[in-house]
């Protein structure tokens, strides 16, 4: 038996026998609507509580429900009360991380003891974002969460991860550095920091960036790369609006003047990756 339902006997009339799980959903509906709607199957029950119902105008009943929720959440471990969207994200993270573990278990585990520990939550979130994006869902709000919490470095890690750079660039870089006699973890971190702080060989087209702003970034990175003998750079765009911007960028004479051969384009749906040579 559950204490929650015991405390609400006068409000929620339900036979708990045979039940294995219950979902209690709070919403604020019509004041004239009924307080409780019960949808029961064999072993589970979904109870919808209309907290705007006039039945809760009775202070005693209102207090009864408020304290039952308070006690059920704070007296039971791992029984949170969550907003619907948050619950759906938590459930999706759980499932997705399991899928990532099954399909590509190496990436997070590989870097777990190699990159700075402060970057691990960002990488984990970035791998989740990549998986959400691969399912064709919007990720800009999640990327914005990362940016808000971790700044440009966080955004760079998320972008580099989305574009597969952890596997295609950073892992080989570690393997190469690890063969050197003077290798230390710090040597890798120093090189890694250059990449995540400034993403020198990649430009990511963002929603908030203007074409002029992107031209400046491409020119700046291109000059730096040339200085170090690097003759190519990648530009990534996700989403129709960003792909359009990338096309404008490639036709901009300020950028075209540097090309020594035609850019290599790969395009799949609303995702476009371009390699430019200079």
């Amino acid at each position: 038996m559950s204490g929650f339902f015991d405390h609400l006997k006068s409000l929620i009339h339900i036979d708990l026998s045979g039940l294995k799980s219950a979902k209690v959903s709070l919403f604020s509906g019509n004041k004239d609507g009924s307080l409780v709607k019960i949808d029961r199957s064999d072993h589970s029950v979904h109870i919808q509580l209309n907290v705007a119902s006039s039945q809760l105008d009775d202070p005693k009943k209102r207090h009864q429900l408020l304290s039952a929720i308070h006690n059920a959440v704070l007296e039971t471990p791992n029984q949170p009360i969550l907003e619907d969207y948050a619950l759906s994200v938590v459930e999706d993270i759980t499932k997705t991380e399991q899928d990532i573990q099954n399909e590509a278990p190496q990436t997070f585990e590989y870097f777990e003891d190699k990159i700075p520990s402060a970057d691990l939550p960002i990488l984990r979130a970035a791998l989740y974002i990549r998986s959400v994006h691969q399912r064709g869902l919007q990720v800009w709000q999640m990327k914005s969460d990362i940016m808000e919490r971790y700044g440009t470095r966080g955004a760079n890690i998320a972008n580099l991860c989305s574009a597969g750079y952890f596997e295609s660039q950073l892992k080989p870089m570690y393997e190469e550095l690890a063969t050197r006699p003077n290798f230390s973890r710090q040597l890798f971190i120093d090189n890694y920091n250059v990449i995540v702080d400034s993403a020198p060989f990649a430009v990511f087209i963002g929603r908030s960036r203007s074409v002029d702003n992107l031209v400046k970034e491409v020119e700046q990175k291109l000059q730096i790369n040339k200085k170090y003998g690097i003759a190519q750079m990648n530009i990534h765009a996700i989403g129709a609006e960003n792909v359009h911007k990338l096309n404008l960028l490639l036709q901009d004479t300020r950028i075209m003047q540097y090309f020594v051969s035609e850019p290599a384009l790969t395009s799949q749906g609303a995702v476009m990756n371009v390699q430019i040579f200079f």
Partner: protein
Amino acid sequence: MKIQFTFDESAKDFVLEAFGKITDEEGYIVEQANRAQRVLTRDGEQIRKANFAGVIKGSERYIKSDLVSLIDLCDDLHKGN
């Protein structure tokens, strides 16, 4: 019996009331009994009603709705299972 509690956007005020909280004029969640005291997340961040994702036992832990906070929550839920 395990009970899953959820709420939608329209019931946020009621949920906050259950934990003795309201929002101040700037939209931050505060103690009903001391409106100068803003509620903090485990990371010490103040939390706006717009970013309020829920409450879990652990003294009385308030959860923000951003991705990293929800990943943290997943870890805590799994540790407890």
